[in-house]
């Protein structure tokens, strides 16, 4: 398997990571090296094996539908890049 430059740009776009000029080529070469390692998986016989998502057989716990957190908006917004009147500011999304 070998990734193309278009695939690298597509993945970077999905991952919301801007690529600098020339970065796509370098990334492609490194990722292809890593996928060379990963390809060893394809030789394993896994038909009928149940995929294992997790180390423990756990079910999500339920809890009472009650308020458990306190309002700490001021503390959280103190570390925000840009706020105004208690709101997080980002570029305009809707015209």
């Amino acid at each position, binding site marked *: 398997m070998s*990734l193309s430059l278009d*695939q*690298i740009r597509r*993945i*970077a776009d*999905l*991952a*919301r*990571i*801007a*690529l*600098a000029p020339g970065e796509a080529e370098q*990334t492609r070469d*490194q*990722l292809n*090296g*890593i*996928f*060379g*390692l*990963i*390809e*060893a*998986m*394809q030789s*394993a016989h*896994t038909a009928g*094996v*149940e*995929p*294992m*998502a*997790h*180390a*423990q057989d*756990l079910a*999500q*716990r339920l*809890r009472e539908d009650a308020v458990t957190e306190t309002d*700490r908006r001021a*503390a*959280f917004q*103190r*570390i*925000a*890049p*840009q706020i105004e009147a208690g709101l*997080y500011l*980002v*570029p*305009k*999304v809707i015209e």
Partner: protein
Amino acid sequence: MINASLKELSAALTGGQLSSVELTRLFLERIGKLNPALNAFITVDAEQSLAMARVADARIAKGEGGPLTGIPVAHKDIFCTEGWLTTCGSKMLSNFVSPYDATVIEHFKTAGAVTLGKTNMDEFAMGSSNETSFYGPVKNPWHPAAVPGGSSGGSAAAVAARLAPAATGTDTGGSIRQPAALCGLTGLKPTYGLVSRYGMIAFASSLDQAGPMAKSAEDCALLLNVMAGFDARDSTSLARPAEDYARDLAQPLAGLRIGLPKEFFAEGLSSDVARAVDAAIAEYRKLGAVTVDVSLPNMRLAVPAYYVIAPAEASSNLSRFDGARYGWRAPQYGDLADMYCQSRAQGFGAEVKRRILIGTYVLSHGYYDAYYLQAQRIRRLIAQDFVAAFRECDLIMGPTTPTVAFDLGDKAGDPVQMYLSDIYTIAVNLAGLPGLSLPCGAGAKGLPVGLQIIGNYFSEARMLNAAHRYQQTTDWHRRSPTL
């Protein structure tokens, strides 16, 4: 004093020979003197540490101290610590003063331990050499040209150089055991779910687990007693009765069945590490243990499966870093999508970006079955290999790493070579089992060698017992680098 065990330090504190303020100052002074060369700490805040030490002294004076009250502990910078810069080794969080405490930090505070500082680490715990940190590489105290291992390299270097009596680490594919091995420490990755992940910045949530890094198994047991416990804020935390992990330390090892997986002693293991590990196994036989040959036939698939599963989970976990609510935001951007793309391009380093891209790809439409599901099936096969092996033995032993500490720069340009340095540790995380590394000899250039002990689920007390008994008859764990 810098070489004292936690038990000895606690006795000195409660006996009044020493105050926590004096002890904290002693380590802060060592950090001031030695850290510029080692780069083990990202953040030191003497004022906050000494304030905690004064509170601990008051508590001890009232007779209300516990085993860790007044003892300084360094925390990996992956644990959110209220009022402390918490960077995870990344530019992305280089301005993040945490507004809350991780559960692990909370547990140490409740125990009265003193936060000595935040230790350097590979960016977002992605690395095996500490070279991916935004804050620069950590030096191995045993040799300035060598890496300390990673990702908990700062914690390992800090304890090895006696800049801290003990430290915390996290282990997703070997990040406690590998640096513990390369720096001559004892480090334990507990069973998945034993220690809360709340406030521990997530890398691969189904694999991440926190644990202690210290000078001995006994110290690790005391630290784990404080770290472990059910936490409703972590959905994968296990509700189990509390245990005293130090309870079996002194038990004899007669009749202990040690499994030796042939895959751990095959091609790729360097001869100096093999010699030290063989000698340690011989010592265990002298202590009354018997050895049996076992096999983990799917071991060779562990690294490939890990490099699908861990990046997949990472790409999802790291999507939260968007420059909107906290962390790095690019100084210049156009629309919202551009703000995300620029902030993430600037805030993440090369290795983190690589893993996010791998994860995004293996989870994307058309590739999910071939990569992600196949990796999860292999994960099951690996876990079943361990189940079969533990029918034949009580504990598994082998090397922690294929070589002693390699040199800075040796593998930094070759991700695949770097990934293979975790060849013996990764399978343990995939299965969710506990793993421990303890020093068992000196290899090339006199660098430490780690013996890995793998236990069945929840057998931490047994593993610590085996490590402790070995440390009663050997002195590898007492050796420290000359600085």
